[in-house]
């Protein structure tokens, strides 16, 4: 996922729901072929899944792969907000 294009592909799918490689390539400064390769990696990782719709293949984010981790990291971020608030309260009141 160090590849920024791959992250862009995932971000766009997360934002727009399902999309085809052709549609994704229109939004990104890369070829359709490159998008297809990134989608293959994302599919293999279980982050996205392909689904045939008529003549097109649509890809969609697999929320369950992301949800547990997202929930955990959101919790980590929220804990830091609480700790920073506690630090501020102590520093400001005493």
């Amino acid at each position, binding site marked *: *996922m160090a590849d920024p294009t791959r992250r862009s592909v*995932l971000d766009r799918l997360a934002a727009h729901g399902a999309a085809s490689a052709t549609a994704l390539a229109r939004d990104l400064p890369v070829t359709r072929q490159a998008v297809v390769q990134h989608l293959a990696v994302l599919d293999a*990782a279980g*982050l996205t899944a392909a689904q045939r719709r008529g003549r097109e293949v649509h890809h969609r984010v697999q929320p369950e792969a*992301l949800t547990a981790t997202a929930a955990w990291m959101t919790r980590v971020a929220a804990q830091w907000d609480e*700790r*920073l608030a506690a630090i*501020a309260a*102590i*520093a400001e009141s005493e």
Partner: protein
Amino acid sequence: MEDSIVRETVVAAPVDRVWEVLTRAEYLPRWFGAEKAEIDLRPGGALTMTWAEHGTGLARVERVEEPTLFSFHWALEVGDQPVPGARTLVEFTLTSEAGGTRLRVVESGFTSLDRPAEKQQWHRERNVDGWRQVLEAVAAHLSGVTT
């Protein structure tokens, strides 16, 4: 910074005061919600945090640059040593500004965490590092929404 969580606040107190609250054993448990803390405030020093119901969290102090920078590696799981693969880096920076101190915390290294054991087989079968990719994707997403 794609594998980090960044949070920031402004404290209406001088930098030296915020530094004390951040680094002294008498204050650490209060903002960590722990029973007690011990800290050897120098690079390589031990930092421990004890919770009655969870046990003891272990961390190792990394950088101490009073009063602007304080960082430590801490173990993800209570009771574990803060070794590579099982730890993240927490770094506080303090900046003096009008009205007080800007306090920023960055927790990083999520993508270097070892995968949970129950998922390792699944990933081995598919020859992908999905755990890391999930972490990076989520961190990238969160870094776009943090303040």
